[in-house]
Protein backbone atom coordinates (compact mmCIF):
# COMPACT_ATOMS: atom_id res chain seq x y z
CA UNK A 1 0.00 0.00 0.00
CA UNK A 2 1.25 3.49 -0.74
CA UNK A 3 1.23 4.33 2.91
CA UNK A 4 3.90 1.69 3.48
CA UNK A 5 6.16 3.32 0.90
CA UNK A 6 6.17 6.54 2.90
CA UNK A 7 9.57 7.73 4.00
CA UNK A 8 8.04 6.90 7.39
CA UNK A 9 9.20 3.45 8.21
CA UNK A 10 8.40 5.49 11.27
CA UNK A 11 4.73 5.02 10.67
CA UNK A 12 4.20 1.32 9.90
CA UNK A 13 2.01 1.02 12.98
CA UNK A 14 -0.10 3.94 11.90
CA UNK A 15 -0.46 2.48 8.43
CA UNK A 16 -1.35 -0.95 9.81
CA UNK A 17 -3.87 0.60 12.14
CA UNK A 18 -5.30 2.49 9.21
CA UNK A 19 -5.67 -0.64 7.11
CA UNK A 20 -7.38 -2.43 9.97
CA UNK A 21 -9.64 0.54 10.53
CA UNK A 22 -10.57 0.74 6.88
CA UNK A 23 -11.11 -2.99 6.66
CA UNK A 24 -13.76 -3.18 9.34
CA UNK A 25 -15.72 -0.01 8.93
CA UNK A 26 -19.22 -1.28 9.51
CA UNK A 27 -19.30 -1.26 13.30
CA UNK A 28 -19.88 2.11 14.98
CA UNK A 29 -17.59 3.02 17.83
CA UNK A 30 -18.61 1.22 20.98
CA UNK A 31 -20.51 -1.54 19.28
CA UNK A 32 -17.78 -3.98 20.25
CA UNK A 33 -15.68 -4.33 23.34
CA UNK A 34 -12.85 -2.30 21.76
CA UNK A 35 -12.54 -0.31 18.56
CA UNK A 36 -10.75 -1.77 15.58
CA UNK A 37 -7.58 0.09 16.57
CA UNK A 38 -5.11 -2.01 18.49
CA UNK A 39 -4.68 -1.33 22.19
CA UNK A 40 -1.39 0.48 21.73
CA UNK A 41 -2.97 2.98 19.36
CA UNK A 42 -5.48 4.06 21.99
CA UNK A 43 -4.70 6.35 24.96
CA UNK A 44 -3.23 4.62 27.98
CA UNK A 45 -1.79 5.35 31.39
CA UNK A 46 0.69 8.09 32.20
CA UNK A 47 4.06 7.43 30.57
CA UNK A 48 6.81 6.88 33.12
CA UNK A 49 9.93 6.00 31.15
CA UNK A 50 11.42 7.96 28.23
CA UNK A 51 10.66 5.03 25.92
CA UNK A 52 7.00 5.19 26.90
CA UNK A 53 7.02 8.92 26.26
CA UNK A 54 8.53 8.44 22.81
CA UNK A 55 5.99 5.74 21.99
CA UNK A 56 3.14 7.95 23.19
CA UNK A 57 4.41 10.90 21.14
CA UNK A 58 4.52 8.72 18.03
CA UNK A 59 1.05 7.38 18.80
CA UNK A 60 -0.38 10.88 18.93
CA UNK A 61 1.50 12.03 15.77
CA UNK A 62 3.61 14.53 17.69
CA UNK A 63 7.31 15.23 18.01
CA UNK A 64 8.88 13.82 21.15
CA UNK A 65 9.98 17.31 22.20
CA UNK A 66 6.47 18.70 21.66
CA UNK A 67 4.76 15.91 23.58
CA UNK A 68 3.90 16.94 27.13
CA UNK A 69 1.31 14.86 29.03
CA UNK A 70 -0.90 16.30 31.72
CA UNK A 71 0.68 16.13 35.20
CA UNK A 72 0.10 12.81 36.91
CA UNK A 73 -2.42 13.97 39.52
CA UNK A 74 -4.66 10.93 39.25
CA UNK A 75 -7.40 13.06 37.69
CA UNK A 76 -7.87 10.67 34.78
CA UNK A 77 -5.97 12.29 31.90
CA UNK A 78 -3.62 9.34 31.38
CA UNK A 79 -1.05 9.99 28.66
CA UNK A 80 -3.14 12.44 26.66
CA UNK A 81 -0.99 15.36 25.50
CA UNK A 82 -1.41 18.78 27.03
CA UNK A 83 -1.81 21.14 24.09
CA UNK A 84 -1.81 24.95 24.40
CA UNK A 85 -5.20 26.31 25.45
CA UNK A 86 -5.97 28.15 22.25
CA UNK A 87 -9.33 28.11 20.54
CA UNK A 88 -9.85 27.07 16.92
CA UNK A 89 -10.57 30.70 16.10
CA UNK A 90 -6.88 31.49 16.40
CA UNK A 91 -5.90 29.12 13.60
CA UNK A 92 -5.14 30.43 10.16
CA UNK A 93 -8.42 31.00 8.29
CA UNK A 94 -6.69 30.91 4.90
CA UNK A 95 -4.90 27.57 5.20
CA UNK A 96 -6.66 24.65 3.54
CA UNK A 97 -7.66 22.51 6.49
CA UNK A 98 -8.99 19.00 6.00
CA UNK A 99 -12.00 20.03 8.06
CA UNK A 100 -12.43 23.75 7.37
CA UNK A 101 -15.24 24.45 9.81
CA UNK A 102 -13.30 22.93 12.69
CA UNK A 103 -9.94 24.23 11.37
CA UNK A 104 -8.56 20.79 12.12
CA UNK A 105 -6.41 18.42 10.07
CA UNK A 106 -6.92 14.67 9.86
CA UNK A 107 -4.82 12.84 12.43
CA UNK A 108 -3.78 15.98 14.29
CA UNK A 109 -4.00 15.57 18.08
CA UNK A 110 -7.13 17.25 19.40
CA UNK A 111 -7.16 19.37 22.51
CA UNK A 112 -8.77 17.76 25.56
CA UNK A 113 -11.35 20.57 25.51
CA UNK A 114 -11.72 20.52 21.73
CA UNK A 115 -15.50 20.70 21.88
CA UNK A 116 -15.23 23.83 24.00
CA UNK A 117 -12.76 25.55 21.68
CA UNK A 118 -14.76 25.18 18.45
CA UNK A 119 -15.66 28.34 16.66
CA UNK A 120 -19.21 28.45 17.95
CA UNK A 121 -18.05 28.49 21.53
CA UNK A 122 -15.11 29.77 23.56
CA UNK A 123 -12.78 32.09 21.66
CA UNK A 124 -9.35 32.90 23.07
CA UNK A 125 -8.24 35.21 20.26
CA UNK A 126 -6.12 38.14 21.40
CA UNK A 127 -8.17 41.25 22.11
CA UNK A 128 -7.38 44.80 21.06
CA UNK A 129 -7.42 45.98 24.66
CA UNK A 130 -5.67 43.83 27.29
CA UNK A 131 -7.93 41.73 29.47
CA UNK A 132 -6.92 43.34 32.74
CA UNK A 133 -7.71 46.81 31.39
CA UNK A 134 -11.10 45.70 30.13
CA UNK A 135 -12.03 44.02 33.40
CA UNK A 136 -10.82 46.99 35.42
CA UNK A 137 -12.94 49.42 33.39
CA UNK A 138 -15.98 47.21 33.53
CA UNK A 139 -15.78 46.51 37.28
CA UNK A 140 -15.15 50.17 38.07
CA UNK A 141 -18.18 51.24 36.06
CA UNK A 142 -20.39 48.53 37.51
CA UNK A 143 -19.35 49.18 41.11
CA UNK A 144 -19.78 52.95 40.80
CA UNK A 145 -23.24 52.57 39.30
CA UNK A 146 -24.32 50.04 41.92
CA UNK A 147 -23.01 52.18 44.77
CA UNK A 148 -24.81 55.26 43.45
CA UNK A 149 -28.07 53.33 43.04
CA UNK A 150 -27.70 51.97 46.55
CA UNK A 151 -27.09 55.43 47.97
CA UNK A 152 -30.11 56.70 46.07
CA UNK A 153 -32.24 54.04 47.72
CA UNK A 154 -31.00 54.81 51.21
CA UNK A 155 -31.07 58.62 50.88
CA UNK A 156 -33.78 59.46 48.33
CA UNK A 157 -33.86 63.06 47.23
CA UNK A 158 -36.68 64.76 45.33
CA UNK A 159 -38.39 68.14 45.28
CA UNK A 160 -40.87 68.83 48.10
CA UNK A 161 -44.42 67.66 47.30
CA UNK A 162 -47.74 68.06 49.01
CA UNK A 163 -50.97 66.05 48.71
CA UNK A 164 -52.88 66.54 45.44
CA UNK A 165 -55.71 69.07 45.59
CA UNK A 166 -58.94 68.20 43.77
CA UNK A 167 -61.52 70.85 42.64
CA UNK A 168 -65.30 70.89 43.18
CA UNK A 169 -65.11 70.29 46.90
CA UNK A 170 -62.80 67.31 46.54
CA UNK A 171 -64.92 65.94 43.65
CA UNK A 172 -67.97 65.59 45.88
CA UNK A 173 -70.43 64.72 43.09
CA UNK A 174 -67.98 62.51 41.14
CA UNK A 175 -67.37 60.47 44.25
CA UNK A 176 -71.06 59.67 44.61
CA UNK A 177 -72.17 62.49 46.84
CA UNK A 178 -75.88 63.29 47.18
CA UNK A 179 -76.75 66.11 44.63
CA UNK A 180 -79.61 67.42 46.78
CA UNK A 181 -77.48 67.99 49.81
CA UNK A 182 -75.08 70.88 50.14
CA UNK A 183 -71.52 69.53 49.92
CA UNK A 184 -69.02 70.34 52.69
CA UNK A 185 -66.95 73.33 51.62
CA UNK A 186 -63.30 72.46 50.89
CA UNK A 187 -61.00 75.48 50.44
CA UNK A 188 -57.41 74.84 49.36
CA UNK A 189 -56.18 78.42 49.36
CA UNK A 190 -55.54 81.17 51.78
CA UNK A 191 -55.79 84.84 51.01
Amino acid at each position, binding site marked *: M*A*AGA*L*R*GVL*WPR*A*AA*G*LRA*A*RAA*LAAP*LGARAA*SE*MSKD*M*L*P*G*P*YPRTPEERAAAAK*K*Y*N*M*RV*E*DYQPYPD*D*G*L*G*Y*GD*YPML*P*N*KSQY*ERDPWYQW*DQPDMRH*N*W*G*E*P*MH*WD*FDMYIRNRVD*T*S*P*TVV*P*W*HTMSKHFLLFLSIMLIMFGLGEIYPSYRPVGPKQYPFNDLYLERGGDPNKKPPAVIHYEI
Partner: protein
Amino acid sequence: MAWAPPPSAAQLYRPNRFVSLPAELDPATYDTSPEKLRAEAERLAIRSRLKRQYLLQLNDPNAPAVIENPALIRWAYAKSQNVYPTFRPTPKTSFLGAVYGLGPLLFWIFVLKADRDRKEKRIQEGKLKRSPLSVFF
Protein backbone atom coordinates in the same frame (compact mmCIF):
# COMPACT_ATOMS: atom_id res chain seq x y z
CA MET B 1 20.79 52.85 41.50
CA ALA B 2 19.95 50.89 38.34
CA TRP B 3 16.42 51.15 37.00
CA ALA B 4 14.76 47.96 35.84
CA PRO B 5 14.17 47.77 32.08
CA PRO B 6 10.69 49.02 31.10
CA PRO B 7 8.10 46.26 30.79
CA SER B 8 7.86 44.76 27.34
CA ALA B 9 4.67 44.97 25.33
CA ALA B 10 4.00 41.30 26.03
CA GLN B 11 4.30 41.89 29.77
CA LEU B 12 1.99 44.88 29.57
CA TYR B 13 -0.54 42.78 27.70
CA ARG B 14 -0.61 40.01 30.35
CA PRO B 15 -2.19 37.08 28.49
CA ASN B 16 -4.25 34.76 30.67
CA ARG B 17 -6.66 31.85 30.48
CA PHE B 18 -9.16 33.82 28.38
CA VAL B 19 -6.96 35.63 25.85
CA SER B 20 -3.70 34.58 24.33
CA LEU B 21 -0.76 36.74 23.32
CA PRO B 22 -0.93 38.14 19.79
CA ALA B 23 1.78 36.76 17.52
CA GLU B 24 3.24 40.21 16.95
CA LEU B 25 4.10 40.59 20.65
CA ASP B 26 5.44 37.07 21.07
CA PRO B 27 9.26 36.97 20.92
CA ALA B 28 9.09 33.41 19.56
CA THR B 29 7.76 34.78 16.26
CA TYR B 30 11.00 36.64 15.64
CA ASP B 31 13.22 33.73 16.64
CA THR B 32 15.04 32.34 13.58
CA SER B 33 17.48 30.00 15.30
CA PRO B 34 18.37 26.73 13.55
CA GLU B 35 16.73 24.69 16.32
CA LYS B 36 13.43 26.39 15.69
CA LEU B 37 13.74 25.88 11.94
CA ARG B 38 14.51 22.20 12.43
CA ALA B 39 11.55 21.82 14.77
CA GLU B 40 9.30 23.53 12.25
CA ALA B 41 10.62 21.28 9.49
CA GLU B 42 9.90 18.16 11.54
CA ARG B 43 6.40 19.34 12.32
CA LEU B 44 5.83 20.09 8.65
CA ALA B 45 7.04 16.59 7.76
CA ILE B 46 4.56 14.99 10.18
CA ARG B 47 1.76 17.21 8.90
CA SER B 48 2.45 16.44 5.27
CA ARG B 49 2.59 12.69 5.92
CA LEU B 50 -0.78 12.84 7.61
CA LYS B 51 -2.18 14.97 4.82
CA ARG B 52 -0.93 12.49 2.26
CA GLN B 53 -2.58 9.60 4.05
CA TYR B 54 -5.81 11.53 4.26
CA LEU B 55 -5.84 12.64 0.62
CA LEU B 56 -5.04 9.13 -0.59
CA GLN B 57 -8.10 7.86 1.21
CA LEU B 58 -10.22 10.81 0.12
CA ASN B 59 -9.47 10.48 -3.59
CA ASP B 60 -9.52 6.69 -3.60
CA PRO B 61 -12.06 5.42 -6.19
CA ASN B 62 -12.76 2.42 -3.96
CA ALA B 63 -13.19 4.85 -1.14
CA PRO B 64 -14.69 3.68 2.14
CA ALA B 65 -17.89 5.47 3.08
CA VAL B 66 -16.43 7.04 6.21
CA ILE B 67 -12.77 7.92 6.64
CA GLU B 68 -12.01 7.24 10.30
CA ASN B 69 -9.94 9.82 12.06
CA PRO B 70 -7.70 8.04 14.60
CA ALA B 71 -7.14 11.31 16.43
CA LEU B 72 -10.88 11.66 16.94
CA ILE B 73 -11.20 8.07 18.14
CA ARG B 74 -8.33 8.57 20.58
CA TRP B 75 -9.86 11.80 21.84
CA ALA B 76 -13.25 10.22 22.42
CA TYR B 77 -11.68 7.17 24.05
CA ALA B 78 -9.47 9.30 26.30
CA LYS B 79 -12.38 11.38 27.52
CA SER B 80 -14.76 8.50 28.12
CA GLN B 81 -13.09 5.15 28.66
CA ASN B 82 -9.61 6.12 29.75
CA VAL B 83 -10.65 8.16 32.76
CA TYR B 84 -11.57 5.34 35.12
CA PRO B 85 -8.42 3.22 34.56
CA THR B 86 -6.13 6.21 34.99
CA PHE B 87 -7.94 7.69 37.99
CA ARG B 88 -6.16 7.38 41.31
CA PRO B 89 -7.43 8.48 44.73
CA THR B 90 -5.05 11.17 45.95
CA PRO B 91 -5.57 13.88 48.57
CA LYS B 92 -6.45 16.32 45.82
CA THR B 93 -8.97 14.10 44.05
CA SER B 94 -10.54 13.03 47.35
CA PHE B 95 -10.92 16.65 48.38
CA LEU B 96 -12.41 17.64 45.03
CA GLY B 97 -14.75 14.67 45.11
CA ALA B 98 -15.97 15.63 48.57
CA VAL B 99 -16.48 19.27 47.61
CA TYR B 100 -18.28 18.66 44.35
CA GLY B 101 -20.08 15.47 45.33
CA LEU B 102 -21.09 15.91 48.94
CA GLY B 103 -20.98 19.70 49.14
CA PRO B 104 -24.16 20.56 47.23
CA LEU B 105 -26.04 17.66 48.84
CA LEU B 106 -25.24 18.74 52.40
CA PHE B 107 -25.82 22.39 51.56
CA TRP B 108 -29.32 21.78 50.25
CA ILE B 109 -30.12 19.40 53.13
CA PHE B 110 -29.37 22.12 55.65
CA VAL B 111 -31.04 24.91 53.71
CA LEU B 112 -34.28 23.02 53.12
CA LYS B 113 -34.41 21.68 56.68
CA ALA B 114 -33.85 25.12 58.17
CA ASP B 115 -36.49 26.64 55.93
CA ARG B 116 -39.07 24.01 56.80
CA ASP B 117 -38.29 24.23 60.52
CA ARG B 118 -38.84 27.97 60.39
CA LYS B 119 -42.13 27.50 58.54
CA GLU B 120 -43.29 24.85 61.06
CA LYS B 121 -42.43 27.17 63.95
CA ARG B 122 -44.50 29.93 62.39
CA ILE B 123 -47.42 27.54 61.93
CA GLN B 124 -47.20 26.47 65.56
CA GLU B 125 -47.19 30.11 66.61
CA GLY B 126 -50.25 30.68 64.52
CA LYS B 127 -48.81 33.20 62.05
CA LEU B 128 -49.19 30.85 59.07
CA LYS B 129 -52.07 28.61 58.13
CA ARG B 130 -51.23 25.06 57.12
CA SER B 131 -52.12 24.75 53.45
CA PRO B 132 -54.98 22.36 52.52
CA LEU B 133 -52.58 20.34 50.35
CA SER B 134 -50.32 19.59 53.32
CA VAL B 135 -49.73 15.94 54.13
CA PHE B 136 -49.12 16.58 57.82
CA PHE B 137 -51.91 15.79 60.29
